[in-house]
């Protein structure tokens, strides 16, 4: 579904990704761990097409298309979703309005008919409940005055409604208490399917207690320096990242 080959990217003249390779097939769950500043968020932004990043080398193929050729919103239309590490506020635009507009835009691009308002509201309410958010959040401005945890659950709600093919979650678990963590985990688990894949960026093994990954990768200094199965995460938890430093990072 996604193949990243030798990806190099820079922002403001600074090299961040330095030859990253990653292959995600349909239905797989990949976890990426790595020290702060190693380029995890950058990877998410580069994939989703945030302006300001320059790709200096490499290629990314997503569902048979050259991802890097697509506009930001076209990538979303193809089914790529990024749950932000730091979701921004859009004052005055209600969550419901925003959700309806995004779902309509994505469905329209795929040639699917728009949901009628009543049908959509029912779905939105269900997603709200699944994300353990009060229905009142649908009426509030997008992320406006939400707590950190509420913002993260709001991202989850959007993800559920948009039904993407590839979900990238950038530290969605950071700053969540154990109950909220379980909400996110069960949301993700409910969405797992043979045609949907996940890329989970996380610092904590505990998320992987609830969402069992097929692969775990360690990202350091802009490259994946180690890949393994879920036991790698446990090992990292026990030993920290420095254990990998010797000889692994060029």
């Amino acid at each position, binding site marked *: 579904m996604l193949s990243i080959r030798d990806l190099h990217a820079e922002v403001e003249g600074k090299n961040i990704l330095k030859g990253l390779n990653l292959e995600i097939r349909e239905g797989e769950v990949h976890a990426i761990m790595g020290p702060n500043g190693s380029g995890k968020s950058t990877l998410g932004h580069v994939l*989703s*097409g*945030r*302006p*300001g990043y320059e790709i200096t080398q490499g290629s990314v193929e997503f569902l048979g298309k050259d991802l890097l050729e697509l*506009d*930001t*919103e076209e*990538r*979303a*239309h193809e089914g790529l*979703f*990024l749950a*932000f590490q730091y*979701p*921004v*506020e*859009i*004052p*005055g*635009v*209600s969550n419901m*309005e*925003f959700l309806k*507009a*995004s*779902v309509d*835009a*994505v469905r329209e*691009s795929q040639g699917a008919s728009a949901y009628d308002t009543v049908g959509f509201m029912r779905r939105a309410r269900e997603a709200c409940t699944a994300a353990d958010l009060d229905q009142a959040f649908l009426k509030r*401005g*997008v992320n406006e005055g939400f707590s950190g945890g509420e913002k993260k659950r709001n991202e989850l709600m*959007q993800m559920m409604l*948009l039904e993407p093919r590839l979900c990238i979650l950038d530290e969605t678990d950071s700053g969540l208490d154990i109950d909220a963590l379980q909400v996110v985990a069960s949301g993700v688990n409910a969405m797992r399917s043979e045609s949907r894949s996940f890329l989970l960026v996380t610092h904590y093994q505990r998320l992987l207690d609830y969402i069992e990954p097929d692969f775990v990768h360690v990202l350091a200094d802009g490259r994946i320096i180690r890949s393994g199965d879920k036991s790698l995460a446990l090992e990292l938890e026990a030993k920290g990242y420095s254990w990998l430093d010797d000889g692994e990072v060029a």
Partner: protein
Amino acid sequence: MSQEQIDRAFAKDYAAGFTTDIESDTLPPGLTEDTIRFISAKKNEPEWLLEWRLGAFQVWREMAGPDWAHVDYTEVDFQSISYYSQPKSMEDRPKSLDEVDPELLATYEKLGIPLHEQEALAGVAVDVVFDSVSVATTFRAKLAEAGVLFCSISEAVQQYPDLVRKHLGSVVPRKDNFYAALNSAVFSDGSFVYIPKGVRCPMELSTYFRINEANTGQFERTLIIADEGSHVSYLEGCTAPMRDENQLHAAVVELVALDDAEIKYSTVQNWYPGDAEGKGGIYNFVTKRGLAHTNAKISWTQVETGSAVTWKYPSCILRGDNSVGEFYSVALTNNLQQADTGTKMIHLGKNTRSTIISKGISAGKSSNAYRGLVRVGPTAKGARNYTQCDSLLIGDQCAAHTFPYIESKNPSGIIEHEATTSKVSDDQLYLCQQRGLDPEKAVSMIVNGFCKEVFKELPMEFAVEAGKLLEVSLEGSVG
């Protein structure tokens, strides 16, 4: 957001920019006493009104244009403007809509304002002013049942001279300011409304102004009188064709709310703003003021998206005790548009209250200024004002300014002022795009969200229209 994206999102298509091919009687350019005598004679006006106009002309000749506003434009050459233009077919004034030139009706259809009553917006009566004359007023019979008078001001001068004579210039005196004096001298048409005592007007009243002829100015005059305990909601909309020259629109609106009356006045102003290089567009120099008697309420709501230069301060004189003034404004400027707009709340009566909510949106290289005065007079014991003034910047080549003036002569008054400036951030746009929205849709959604507090004050029938107008103003011509 990159400059390119902004440009794309804001590359406006001015949908109302067509001209109508209609034969008109247009006075040659120039302004002298004879011009005024001509207009007055054309309208068969009584002697007192001619004298009133000539008096205004005298005053105007001794005045200079305002130079304090934060706008910059080539001076208007008042001798190059034509002060009167009417469609030829109006020579024998139509008695009913069936007699109105079909070309004219088609113009309004195109603007989305069907005038045939059976097709018209349910519950909205419309007066239509084309260049210098009112061409049609709908639903008059229905309004007459309730005793509501709604017609063009020229007609009111003939039919209700006492009401006109009593109130004309009572809120905006002839010598009030340069453009008000000019308007008083040369006003051609406009709407007149009278709501009798205790009557709640059974429908929304609305006037659509359209400038069609080249080189004409539009100087309309609107007078609304709400008698004791009455209630009316009125909306005006304005458009003009795209022309390379600047055209002048200098209107005066006077509202009189007698004891316990309520007037809600909404404007959706979409005069031609000029092109991306700042060529052409309407100079919108307007004086709007309401006088509120005891327990009366006057509420101004405006959505200003058009005009090359806007200079406009709908104001309230809160003369009666417990009277209430409100001002809700959205002003959007793009390209090289300039707006200097705001309000004046003059508190004279005891326990008078006013609210000001202003939302300024600047894009392109435009300049958008809020200018507001809150004055609490010595007699205004217990007066209160709340002002909230928010600016939203799109891109980094535009400007927003806030000029609040507060004059308090009574220590018991409470005046609160809040102001914010924000930008449509790259991150907000990125979020929207990541969720599948194109940049134009994203910008228009963000801007609409920013304006929500004002839109909810518009009459229901028009809130949707205003939202769409912003969307159109923001929509690109991409693809």
